């Protein structure tokens, strides 16, 4: 099965931004290539006494704006091009939020389903040893990603600290709360999305206290989105769904009740209230705000014309196909693009770094307050760019981010 190389997509996106920003081809070329890559071979002693060699990567895509930041993935299908692409996207995401960080990513080709807890720990520590010279609180700060957990972050921090001979909490984020993690991380993504929705509603003059919302996907992000929309704005959640189907209820759905049903029966489609709907129908409901929070490519050229929502807040990664994006833009649907809408997570990761540096930890309220400032500022910068360049919000986000990276490179004298 042929699959599109994600790094090729990144390079095309850079080209598109470069055309809009009228960038010099030399600058574009810098943006289209990672600055540093580390390819690793990690020998790990397995439980049965054998030694297995794992391949790993760490890519620092661009550190013009500061130390690189990005997750570590443990995945059997990991490829260097995937890591490169994800490192580039981290660069743009951090720049968009105007964090003093560049973008990076790492990964190990492994299947955690085939590793015992002890092997997983030895692998994580082996990775920490191998990248020791390459990462650091002021160089490159990894974080959890696919199949990596706060526990793995703790092991890596511990191994790094042991080599350094001192506690180095700031070397990695996404650590357990008890070991230098930040409060507010659990619902950071949804919270960040809510701040964007609030600002978008202001722009579009939508009264959120009267707004109706449909949430597609009811995992962690979807649940928090439903809960926070009600708590923060008094909006009415009229529809929720997951992969097994969902429920539409004009009088409103209680987010916690839906979560309880999902835990008990594995799906919100078993909610007793309202009418049953499938996970595709929910996208076409007549609501003010649609929050896709689960899967990629759910809004396509086929259903995009039928979308009735005024705002689509992309909590999930890539819920709209490029074809759908164009249709929605022409229809006047306001799309809050994924890498803005779900940037709450990386922003709180950055806050964790700051707290680690200062050895002083914030309350949840302080985290939310600062997150609000960051997300609100970022939203408006994208809005302005979208107006200035007359481009859709997604393109505007890329343009704004690339613009900032280019500015940093220029000031450093790289270009």
């Amino acid at each position, binding site marked *: 099965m*042929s699959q599109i190389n994600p790094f090729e997509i990144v390079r095309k996106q850079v080209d598109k931004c470069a055309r809009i920003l009228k960038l010099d081809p030399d600058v574009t070329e810098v943006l289209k290539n990672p600055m540093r890559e580390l390819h690793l071979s990690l020998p790990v002693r397995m439980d049965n006494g054998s030694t297995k060699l794992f391949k790993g990567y760490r890519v620092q895509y661009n550190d013009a704006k500061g130390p690189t930041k990005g997750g570590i993935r443990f995945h059997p299908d990991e490829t260097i091009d995937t890591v490169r692409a994800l490192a580039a996207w981290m660069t743009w995401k951090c720049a968009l939020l105007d964090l003093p960080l560049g973008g990076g990513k790492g990964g190990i080709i492994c299947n955690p389903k*085939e590793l015992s807890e002890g092997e997983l720990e030895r692998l994580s520590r082996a990775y920490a040893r191998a990248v020791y010279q390459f990462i650091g609180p002021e160089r490159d700060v990894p974080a959890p990603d696919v199949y990596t957990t706060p526990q793995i972050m703790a092991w890596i921090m511990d191994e790094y600290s042991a080599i350094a001979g001192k506690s180095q909490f700031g070397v990695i984020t996404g650590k357990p709360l008890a070991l230098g993690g930040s409060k507010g991380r659990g619902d950071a993504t949804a919270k960040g999305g809510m701040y964007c929705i609030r600002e978008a509603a202001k722009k579009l003059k939508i009264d959120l206290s009267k707004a109706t919302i449909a949430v597609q996907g009811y995992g962690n992000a979807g649940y928090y989105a439903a809960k926070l929309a009600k708590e923060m704005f008094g909006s009415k959640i009229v529809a929720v769904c997951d992969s097994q189907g969902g429920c539409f209820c004009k009088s409103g759905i209680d987010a916690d009740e839906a979560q309880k049903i999902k835990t008990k029966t594995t799906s919100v489609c078993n909610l007793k209230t309202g009418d049953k709907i499938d996970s595709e129908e929910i996208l076409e409901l007549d609501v003010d705000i649609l929050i896709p929070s689960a899967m990629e490519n759910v809004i396509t050229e086929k259903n995009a014309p039928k979308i009735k929502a005024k705002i689509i807040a992309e909590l999930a990664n890539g819920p709209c196909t490029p074809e759908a994006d164009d249709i929605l833009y022409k229809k006047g649907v306001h799309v809050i693009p994924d890498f803005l809408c779900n940037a709450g997570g990386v922003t709180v990761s950055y806050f964790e770094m700051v707290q680690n540096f200062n050895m002083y930890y914030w309350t949840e309220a302080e985290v939310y307050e600062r997150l609000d400032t960051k997300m609100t500022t970022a939203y408006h910068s994208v809005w302005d760019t979208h107006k200035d360049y007359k481009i859709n919000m997604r393109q505007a986000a890329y343009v704004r981010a690339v613009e900032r990276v280019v500015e940093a490179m220029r000031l450093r004298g790289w270009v």
Partner: protein
Amino acid sequence: MAADINSGIKDLDSLLQGYQPGDNIVWQIDNLDDYAFFAEKFAGEALDKKKQCIYFRFASHPRILPDQPGITTVNIDPAPGFDFFSSEVHNIIRDCDRDASLIFDNLSSLVTTWATDELLANFFMVTCPYIFELGPVAYFALTRGKHLHTAVARIRDTTQILIDVFHVKNSMYIHPIKVWKRYSSQMFLPHLVSETGWEPVSISGEAAVLSSTALKQPLGTSVASGAPWEVIFDRLQKYRNIEQQPGAYTPEIASLKHELIRMMIGDHPSFNKLADEYFTIDDLINARNRLIGSGRIGGKAAGMLLSRRILLADKGPIDFAKVLEAHDSFYIGSDVFFTFLVKNDLFQLRMQLTRDSSMSHEEFEQVERRFLAGEFPPEIMSQFRDMLDYFGQAPIIVRSSSLLEDRFGNAFAGKYRSEFCANQGGPEQRMNAFLQAVKLVYASAINPDALSYRHKQGLGENDEQMAILVQRVSGMPYKQFFFPPLAGVAFSRNLYAWTNRIDPNRGMIRLVFGLGTHAVNRVGGDYTRIVAVSDPQLRPEAGTKIIKYSQHNVDVLDLSADDFRSETVAELLVDCDYPNLNLVTSLVTDGYPQEMIRSCPQGRSDDLVLTFNNFINRTPFIKIMDDMLKRLEAAYGQPVDTEFTAHIDPEGGVKINLLQCRSLRLPGTAGRVEFPEHISDEQILFTSNRFISGGALHNIRYILYIDPDKYAGIESIDVKKSIGRTVGRINRHPSVIEGGIIMMGPGRWGSSNINLGVNVGYSDIDSTSVLVEMAREERGHVPEVSYGTHFFQDLVESGIMYLPVYPSDPESKFNESFFESAPNVLPDIMPELAESSSLIHLIDVRQKSNGLYAHILADPTVHRAICFLDITCA
């Protein structure tokens, strides 16, 4: 009222809710001191309250009560006979105070004088109602095991209160058998008598040891007959204690034993060989002592007994004498089934239905109603009562144990019923629930699924008799619920090797919290912990997925509702105080499950996830199961499938209760598969040599084939999505269901990422016999197929064979030309789907290959599977 009449023992009053005027209390004892203990307290209470206390002295045994002021001793000589003695006693009762306390010598002594149990029972039956009528409270004693069952039964039926007293390991226990018009949820459990407060024995393992030690012959037996069964049994009794090693029996004893095994278990040569080898005479006599009625004990019971004996007999790393929990099961002999059929005019009906299996489920409901209206003969009812008295209020399960079931070659998994009895309420209520359970199990012998299975297995006309295994439900009470902390099924081969690290020749365990029904049944949308014995720390999920694919609901018995139900983990464990919670659950912290190194913080039950991590990693459980499965497979000579419960003792040790063991030879599982020697290349459609499930499937008519290249070439997401829906419609087409279908397409089927495979749900593929995931190697990387996903688990659980095929693997074969040249019959069969035929290729194998069918043989032990064309195969 009741509060005024006390026993002199606070705990006893609390247990029995005090005495009522006219109560007769019969103490069934092994030694007189026990009776004296209770009688002295009762007399002391009477003296304190300044009540009249009369001691009826008629036996030759020492005095029960001291000769002291306030106690009136009345000496009556029983020698003149029943009539005189009874009249004297009645005269004294007539003249005593209405609130007097009456204490009698041990009634058993009367038999020495009168030489008959009958007169003893008669005395009680005339005296007890008289006391009841007048109002005093009376104490009587009976020595256990000294009297005919019929006499004791009459006394039991007449008295208001009957209490067993016994000693185990220097401790005294009392077990109320009958308490008229009083009830509490723990009244009928055995209680440990101690000075610091009486404790009910409610943990199943302890109760089983206690009751089986104290009551060696819990069932009253009918009058001895000269039937061969009884003759052999009596002859073997003589040899019971002479030799315990089966191999060392003399030819005469061995022959008698063999005959008894044949009578109790049946005529299966392989099974009987094992039974001969492992069962001791003592085992058989113990089983006989717990057999209600006569006849065979059935396959399930025999498998349970044999497997336990194998573990106790053979030597290995684990000492199973220290690990196996005692069982105290009863068996309802297969003759009782026939008696029930004949007595209730159901025999003809059964014969007729066995010949013709076309009964609908609705028709079966009518049959079931006829069974429920049936009755048992009085002697069986009497033994049922004995058994229920023995169990008291301990929950029991009534399990089918038919002669064909659970034996070599025929699993009948889930075809016959098992019924839980929470066993709460008074004796009548408990009896009614038990009778209903037995009748439902009997009716299930002719349910449509079972009959159909029997016909498919060629067993239609075979002699199928339904014996029943009555087991104490393994577990302990928690709040109003009763359940075991751990239960599950364990296979000696791994059917679910999601990575090649896992050794398929070692076992697999499906572990649950609560009753094992959750592991045995297919639980839609909920999951069990799957443990590979070779690599117990591995699991098919990682990260946050562990939370999603964990067990969320727990099967329990609700003692307050006298019912079986499911509770969510969060609700059941809301108080976070379940013993050893940190061994079975992890706590979601920072969004991920973490092991608890201390007890669960209050208010965090929503964050508990059943991972069993500490139980697997920090207790000897896996070592025990590994050894158990190896030993059973070695003894059986083939893979085995077991059901078990597990408990953690206060020292962190693990106890296993082996509930069932049978040979594992189901289609689609890990049994040895014979591959034909000569299959030509033209016959082969594909082969697979990676991780596969096993079995043999024959005569498959259709193949649904989605070409991976064509699929990859589809650009539109909507078109890709529509393929999944089309597959679902084909899956439900009657011709496809009837003819059988293999579905082949790019892996991973059922993935949430549509680019990774065909977007289907379980219901879209549930008619398929085999699901083939095709993975093409690209740029040195082979994409992962569905191993370990919940979707794969669905396949395993529903018996759908799963095969990954790697067409570009030089060691595999893939007959591309067959698939390319076969006509697509989709437009013919389902014209409405014609437009999908460019992407979905439906092959009628019979049409394409001139009457041949597709056959699949797969053996995971050698990592070999082959799909080939051949004529139909029976």
